[in-house]
């Protein structure tokens, strides 16, 4: 009964989304106030229906209803309760439902905040969000219904994919999706503004907090995914340039560009058409990611079981949404004019460079991700593009970006007046270079060419970012949350650069064969292998090794990496053992049984690797601080301008 109720609720949600889209877009166009008034109830109704459907699906999981195919495929009576709930997004169908739920939550949030917007504009925003929601609901109901019954019911479920049975992964998809879906809000604001022909600074001001919040969630989501891959997959890497990872990274790069470009449009009324385009591109890349992951076009390590029919549907949806938005853009954007100018050394120029470099970075990732597909389409044979392509090409755009950030942060709007800052620039750079090279050669006494470069750039960003806040503090000026947030996010970026440089330069990796009682020395640590024992879990059994770690004779830790076999799927997973010691991340993974008690063990020592994730969270915190600035909330609606494209003057 519950599954049918959930299915029915999804169908009602689809109808309400259609109404929301129709009233939201047609109402303002035809000037029918009654239609506009109907949008909010449609949003509320849709949210209730989607929540009901999700509730029904969770109830089916918790109640072990194996007559539901999706539950039978992704749960099991032995699965702990926590994972039975998280199993909701363990596979394709359920994660789509999660997507829809989060879109409903964002839409409700926009509705609650819409009081400050002109009613027509708000209706249009909600209308565009209705179109997005309609598309995803139709996709779910037509190709991926999670409530499909199984007849006869399965006696027990096939269990959740064991590599997903991990707290990190249980929270990673919701946060990542919140970021993805959040860009739909920026997209909706852009489309609404183009539909209305009202592309003034006010539009950018309204969009900014939403975009920044979505960006912060996406940052967190990517970091969690990387963290999970590091300790669960047992390969010891934190980033693999895998299509699925790239699918989340491309919208992040475009979103980062959008956050900066919105700042220029908000403050100075410039880059308007560019900002619009970025808002479209950021969300398009989110949807493209969904397409790539689920259509089976690209094969990836953490691919969903894909289906070409789903691929065709998403492609059609992509063409309607993105094609529609870009057509609207081609029609409206030429009417935009900005009369304000700026000097080469002004902050606007630096933000322009920032945008260009970030878009180039997104472009190189995009090209690398799609290269196998393009070469296949042109019948050039199968190619594989990996870190040897991504690492250097990505660096080409990132290094200048980091250097320009340290300079640009001192530049003022309109007129750069960088001459006044010459001293600050020079001093911070010298201090960073001395510190960077000193630390590199002082602590490690060796390294690659890029090691001191990375350290210097990271430290330079830290010093430059602190100049303005310290100056404000000394002069007794207040520090608005937006500025504070920006500073925190930039500090996070700097920490990430330093951490990445260190990890890439000084990681030690060894695969060794150990028999009980023997030991191995890696990177100043001694690892003594005591042997293996069997371990039992609620739904798996496995083998655990015990290794005693010492550093110059002093005990550090006893580590127990495991290999688990999950009963139901028979799948083997590797549980790494990790220990932090003086900033070094020691990672042990149990390999193969080599016979006669000997086991292969992978030993990795990665200095500062945890700082990468910490830095990402600091960046996200910066985003959250900036998004919560009161300036955005008190920005009251200006009396609605006539809905025609008026060439406005920006000053």
């Amino acid at each position: 009964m519950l599954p049918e109720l959930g299915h029915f609720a999804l169908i009602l949600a689809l109808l309400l989304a259609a109404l929301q889209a129709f009233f939201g877009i047609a109402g303002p166009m035809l000037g029918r106030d009654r239609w506009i008034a109907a949008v909010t109830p449609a949003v509320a109704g849709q949210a209730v229906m989607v929540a009901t459907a999700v509730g029904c699906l969770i109830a089916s999981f918790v109640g072990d209803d194996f007559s539901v195919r999706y539950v039978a495929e992704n749960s099991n009576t032995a699965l702990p309760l926590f994972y039975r709930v998280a199993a909701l997004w363990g596979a394709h169908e359920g994660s789509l439902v999660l997507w829809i739920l989060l879109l409903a939550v964002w839409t409700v949030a926009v509705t609650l905040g819409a009081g400050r917007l002109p009613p027509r504009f708000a209706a249009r925003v909600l209308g565009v969000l209705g179109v997005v929601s309609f598309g995803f609901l139709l996709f779910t109901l037509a190709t991926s219904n999670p409530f499909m019954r199984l007849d006869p019911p399965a006696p027990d479920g096939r269990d959740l994919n064991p590599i997903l049975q991990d707290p990190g992964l249980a929270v990673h998809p919701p946060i990542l999706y919140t970021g993805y879906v959040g860009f739909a809000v920026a997209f909706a604001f852009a489309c609404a503004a183009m539909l209305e022909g009202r592309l003034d600074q006010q539009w950018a001001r309204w969009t900014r907090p939403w975009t920044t919040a979505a960006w912060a969630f996406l940052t967190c989501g990517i970091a969690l995914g990387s963290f999970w891959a590091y300790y669960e997959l047992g390969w010891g890497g934190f980033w693999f340039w895998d299509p699925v990872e790239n699918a989340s990274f491309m919208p992040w790069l475009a979103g980062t560009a959008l956050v900066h470009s919105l700042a220029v449009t908000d403050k100075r009324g410039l880059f308007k058409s560019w900002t619009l385009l970025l808002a479209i591109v950021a969300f398009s890349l989110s949807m493209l990611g969904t397409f790539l992951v689920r259509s089976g076009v690209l094969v990836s390590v953490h691919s969903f079981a894909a289906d070409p029919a789903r691929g065709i549907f998403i492609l059609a949806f992509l063409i309607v949404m993105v094609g529609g938005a870009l057509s609207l853009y081609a029609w409206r954007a030429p009417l935009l004019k900005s009369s304000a100018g700026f000097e080469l050394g002004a902050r606007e120029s630096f933000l322009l460079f920032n945008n260009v470099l970030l878009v180039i970075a997104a472009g190189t990732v995009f090209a690398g991700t799609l290269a196998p597909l393009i070469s296949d389409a042109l019948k050039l044979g199968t190619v594989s593009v990996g870190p040897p392509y991504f690492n250097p090409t990505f660096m080409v755009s990132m290094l200048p970006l980091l250097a320009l950030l340290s300079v640009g942060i001192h530049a003022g709007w309109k007129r750069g007046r960088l001459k006044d800052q010459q001293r600050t620039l020079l001093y911070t750079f010298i201090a960073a270079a001395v510190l960077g090279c000193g630390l590199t050669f002082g602590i490690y006494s060796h390294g690659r060419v890029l090691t001191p470069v990375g350290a210097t750039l990271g430290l330079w960003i830290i010093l430059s970012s602190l100049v303005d806040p310290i100056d404000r503090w000394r002069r007794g000026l207040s520090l608005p949350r937006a500025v504070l947030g920006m500073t925190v996010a930039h500090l996070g970026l700097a920490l990430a650069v330093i951490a990445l440089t260190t990890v890439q330069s000084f990681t030690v990796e060894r695969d060794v064969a150990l028999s009980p009682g023997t030991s191995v020395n890696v990177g100043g640590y001694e690892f003594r292998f005591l042997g293996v024992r069997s371990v039992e879990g609620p739904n798996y059994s496995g083998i655990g090794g015990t290794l005693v770690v010492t550093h110059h004779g002093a005990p550090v830790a006893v580590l127990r990496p495991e290999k688990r076999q999950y009963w139901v799927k028979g799948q083997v997973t590797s549980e790494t053992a990790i220990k932090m010691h003086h900033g070094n991340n020691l990672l042990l993974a149990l390999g193969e049984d080599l016979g006669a008690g000997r086991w292969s063990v992978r030993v990795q020592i990665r200095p500062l690797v945890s700082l990468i994730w910490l830095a990402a969270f600091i960046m996200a915190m910066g985003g959250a601080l900036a998004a919560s600035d009161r300036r955005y909330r008190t920005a009251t609606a200006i009396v609605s301008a006539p809905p025609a494209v008026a060439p406005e003057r920006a000053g």
Partner: protein
Amino acid sequence: MSRFLLPLGVFALLAVVLAIGIQHSPEKGVIPSPLIGKPAPQFALPSLTDPASTVRSADLRGHWYLFNVWGTWCGECRAEHEMLLQVRRAGVLPLIGLDWKDDDAQARGWLTQLGDPYQAVAVDRSGRVAIDWGVYGAPETFLVNPQGVVVYKHIGALTYETWTREILPRVSSAAATRS
């Protein structure tokens, strides 16, 4: 004007590439098995029902067969058992079982209790042969043609749908082209 049409043009080009990409990936939907189109891995294992005799892949040449990986520890295998019995009753092609990492006595008990759909069952206690076949979880079913080439792989319980849509057409179309 034209410069604002550029994004639309780029996107149109991308859509074409993606459309071609979908066309080219008909079988990527299922987890791709590198074995498809390649000779089935060789094996010679003791028989479950008659421990004195051996089940050899070489003896299976010359006719179609379904190679089904199962075990008594696998709940989903119990779910697919009824379908396997139907396959046996249909009599289109023989089922060869691979009893994977299992207890022999329990496996024999399973077949007496639930019915034996297999022409022969090979015992793979160490799981070595399953590794050769690229098995990642039970049940999995492979369709092998008379030349000993794997033409299709199904992951999870065999369903009536798979049987009628994927397996039968492959067997019968091959029979039709030969006659």
